[in-house]
């Protein structure tokens, strides 16, 4: 039914650039971990990890060229995971006061 199936071909060069970026970010996250940033340790590590995950999703998993159904449903899955993790802290953060 869908006549314009997405048949996007990503060139080797593009994939290679993405791989180089991913390896570089891995280097950054290892380097940063040896510096104590206090409260920002985990957020910085997670920020780098999320950037890497986004690159994998967009290019390796072809999300950039994907139909809207998949993009919207993926984002909602991630949002629900975010709700799950953040609402958990409303309980846990106030439970161990002493």
């Amino acid at each position, binding site marked *: 039914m869908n006549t314009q199936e997405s048949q996007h*071909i990503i060139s*080797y060069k593009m994939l290679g650039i993405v791989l180089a970026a991913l390896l570089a970010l891995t280097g950054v996250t290892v380097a940063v971990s040896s510096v104590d940033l206090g409260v920002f*340790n985990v957020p910085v590590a997670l920020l780098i990890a999320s950037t890497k995950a986004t690159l994998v999703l967009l290019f390796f998993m072809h999300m950039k060229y994907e139909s809207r159904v998949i993009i919207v449903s993926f984002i909602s899955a991630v949002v629900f995971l975010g709700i799950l993790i953040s609402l958990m802290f409303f309980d846990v953060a106030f439970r161990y006061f002493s």
Partner: protein
Amino acid sequence: MEKKIDKTIDKSIDKTGVRIGMWLFLYTEIILFGGLFVLYAAYFHKFPDLFAQGGKELNRVLGTVNTAVLLISSFTVAASITALQRGKKGQTISLLLFSIFCGAVFLVNKYFEWSAKFHHDIFPNSATLQDGPDGLNIFFGLYYVITGLHGLHVIIGMLLLTITLVLVIKERVHKDRFQLLENSGLYWHLVDLIWIFVFPLFYLVL
């Protein structure tokens, strides 16, 4: 007559539908690992120092090597799709073989890593962990559950890639019909995606 009908069905694959199906399955995987990350977050909040101490026990070099191995294999799987779309069967086969090889390297590294931990009496129900502080026991419990489940996914991913490889060689998966390769690839990338978060949370906690 019947054969004719079969052929028409064969040719009109709902390519988007096949992919949506795979993604729906991947969401359940995200939630599965997400649940474990919730546990990690809660206990990390309670025992930040012990988690850091546990993290220092892990082999940072092996962890980094394994991250690179998975990233490279993800690249070769993505490239194999490009190769197949361009109709280059030989390239597809060698790229897939290399990806499966990377999966094996990952598991061998994991084997050495776990063996070293066992050797130091760090495994579920070991005396060191049982008599040690709770936080450390929980850290290694989560470490074994999450990396173990992840390792299982690596094995399944390798299996899927092998099946795809055989069908590519048999020309059942080809330029105009590569949904199986695409979906196996998506699964392999998800395995990589999870490791991207496992690596800093376990190996690099301060």
